[in-house]
């Protein structure tokens, strides 16, 4: 089991029960007690819990909030997705990278490539890519959302309409067969919709946890994608659905050990 996932489970249990002991955790998670202790140390360092003899208790001061994360728990999944995505990007491609952490990972992966033009409204992605002068970055204008460092609004959309790209990597927050692809905010959804209009190929990127989840605002119908890149542990019904509807489904993982 991966460290990130183990830590996630330990946090869940602590939030639920407020205390936990090492030997229970080790049998439950199938790892040695030493490993569990190390995990608990890590969490103690983040002020999430206080270790006790043979276990740990949760720190009362921690706001019990589902969004609370010490680090991005899906980081490894995103990296794996991005390595598949990087194989889809060739020289002379003009692509869109929509805002999101997975697309940020893709940006890091394609730094070594040459002669690529990237249209993005995510300033983090733009600044990441700016370290390679062989990549041309195009930023549309618009309103800045300073908490996410993304651009949106009427101006952004109008700007986007001036372009045509071969591939758009669209990161979404929710995927279901009924509601299709969804994201958290209306503004983002409408920017993404503009992006879909100017691309030849639509590639949806999203880690496995987004499946079977509906976010606030719909971007597009499920059938509008050409390719999906995610992780293997999505529900089987999606694997069936995409295959039968002629949508290429890529499930990314790393066949080398590591991460244990």
């Amino acid at each position, binding site marked *: *089991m991966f460290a990130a996932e183990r830590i996630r489970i330990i946090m869940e249990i602590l939030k639920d029960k407020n205390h936990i002991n090492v030997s229970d955790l080790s049998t439950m998670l199938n790892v040695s007690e030493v490993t569990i202790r190390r995990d608990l140390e890590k969490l103690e360092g983040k002020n999430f819990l206080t270790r006790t003899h043979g276990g740990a208790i949760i720190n009362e001061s921690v706001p019990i909030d589902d969004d609370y994360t010490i680090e991005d728990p899906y980081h490894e999944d995103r990296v794996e997705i991005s390595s598949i995505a990087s194989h889809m990007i060739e020289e002379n491609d003009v692509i869109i990278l929509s805002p999101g952490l997975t697309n940020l990972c893709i940006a890091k992966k394609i730094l070594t490539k040459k002669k690529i033009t990237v249209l993005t409204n995510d300033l983090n992605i733009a600044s990441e890519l700016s370290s390679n002068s062989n990549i041309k970055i195009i930023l549309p204008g618009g309103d800045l959302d300073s908490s996410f460092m993304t651009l949106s609004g009427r101006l952004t959309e109008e700007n986007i309409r001036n372009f045509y790209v071969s591939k758009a990597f669209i990161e979404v927050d929710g995927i279901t067969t009924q509601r299709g692809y969804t994201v958290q905010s209306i503004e983002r959804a409408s920017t993404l919709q503009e992006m879909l209009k100017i691309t030849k190929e639509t590639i949806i990127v999203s880690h496995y946890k987004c499946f079977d989840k509906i976010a606030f605002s719909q971007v597009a119908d499920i059938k509008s994608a050409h*390719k999906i890149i995610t992780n293997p*542990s999505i529900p089987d019904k999606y694997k069936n659905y*995409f295959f*039968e509807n002629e949508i290429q*489904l890529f499930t990314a*993982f790393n*066949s080398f050990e590591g991460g244990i």
Partner: protein
Amino acid sequence: MNPVLKLENINKKISDFFSLRDINLEFFKGEAHVLIGENASGKTSLMKIIAGFYLKDNGKIYIDNKEVKINSPADSKKIGISMIHQDFSLFDHFSIAENIFLESKKYSILSLKIIDFESMCSECDNLFAKFNIKLDSKTKVKKLSFAQKQLVEVAKAYVNKPKIIIMDEPSSSLTINESKILFNIIKELKKLNSVIIFISHRIEDLNAIGDRISILREGKIIFSSATLNLSEDKIINLMTGMDYSKRYPKLNIQHGREILRVKDLTSGKTFKNLNFNLYKKEILGITGLAGSGKSKLARCIFGIDKIKSGKIYLDNKFVNIKNTIDSIDNKIGYLSEDKYKDGLFLYLNIPLNITAPNLKRISNGYFIDKSFEKELTNTYTKKLDIKYANLYDNISQLSGGNQQKIALAKWIISRSKILILDEPTIGIDIASKVDIYNIINELVTKGSSIILISSDINEIIGMCDRVLVLYEGEISKTLTRENLSRDKIIKYMVKLGDNNL
């Protein structure tokens, strides 16, 4: 004209992912009805229902417009149905004549169990002369070749004059001459007003004797007609289905240096003088009809079957692969076509299955590091999304798709550089299929090369960078991804050549 045999809405579940569905067919007297379909399309299963070896789930069978119940081979024999199997029902230690007249009891004198051997043999010789069969009636059956036994079976059926005779792939092993004899016997049987049901995947047979054709695909009759003005490629198109090759998750990855070269590889009868190579990070497809030698080729490269002559080079170095130990040492992996029979240890648990070819990695030569084994298993069952109730259950309790992923996990862990997959997705659920294609992608991005052997043309077109089409043990064409198409593959599968394209 009333049909002699009529099948109405026959359904039969064969496995979780395969069943015969709503089969409606009519068979008329004096006609040869050719049943065509790919491997595992359900031809033999359907015939086994008629011959009483399988029980149908529902539906009705009519003989001369009267409904009949066929619950056992004996029931079917009583009606006058006789089936010639791919595996024979001859008695090896008796003479040909005795076998042929076994059921007719014509030469049993009185009620004593004595046989008038001489007159029996002379009639048998007459029969053989009529059909130009060059065999001595007194020869023991065990001395005959596979094809000769087949002819004896057919002759036996002719003597018994069955109402309905089912022949399962009789022509696949016959020479041209022997096929002629077979077709002559069939013509005689037609004159006797028998119904002949002829199972085949060879389209030439249809032109030679067929009066009527039915095509089976994925357990369904998708075409049935009396008119024989069908072109070969139309039939194959019907056999193999629509073009669905766009749904395969294909990554375009630049291939590297040559990693495998096969030179003049010859294996006894199945194939000879095969030459091809494989590049690093390449997915090489090998396809062909049944009997084209594609599975045998895999078994020879992996060292299961002996090769007669020819050389295999890995990384430009000649390697002598004598057995599977050699091939595994050379980082070759192999997923067999029949995973139940020889790919998996069904009655051992997941860790034991996954580590079978990887003992060197998890042991110090004497003892096994169980915690490392468990860690490896946990990691890979998660990575490959293998679903199980309990890690230590026998894998016979898992679904076919999950079993296949376990079989693949073995070779991922052993870090095979060349992975030969023989029909990796046959008979498994769609979700697992998609997983397997993605596993192939991941392995290729990590530097492995794949040989994908498949009779699923969509899969071949969808996943492969280059395709070898085999026809009767020879490479009839090598197609690259740019000029890969369904029509081309089909034409080279039956070796129509460039002129017909």
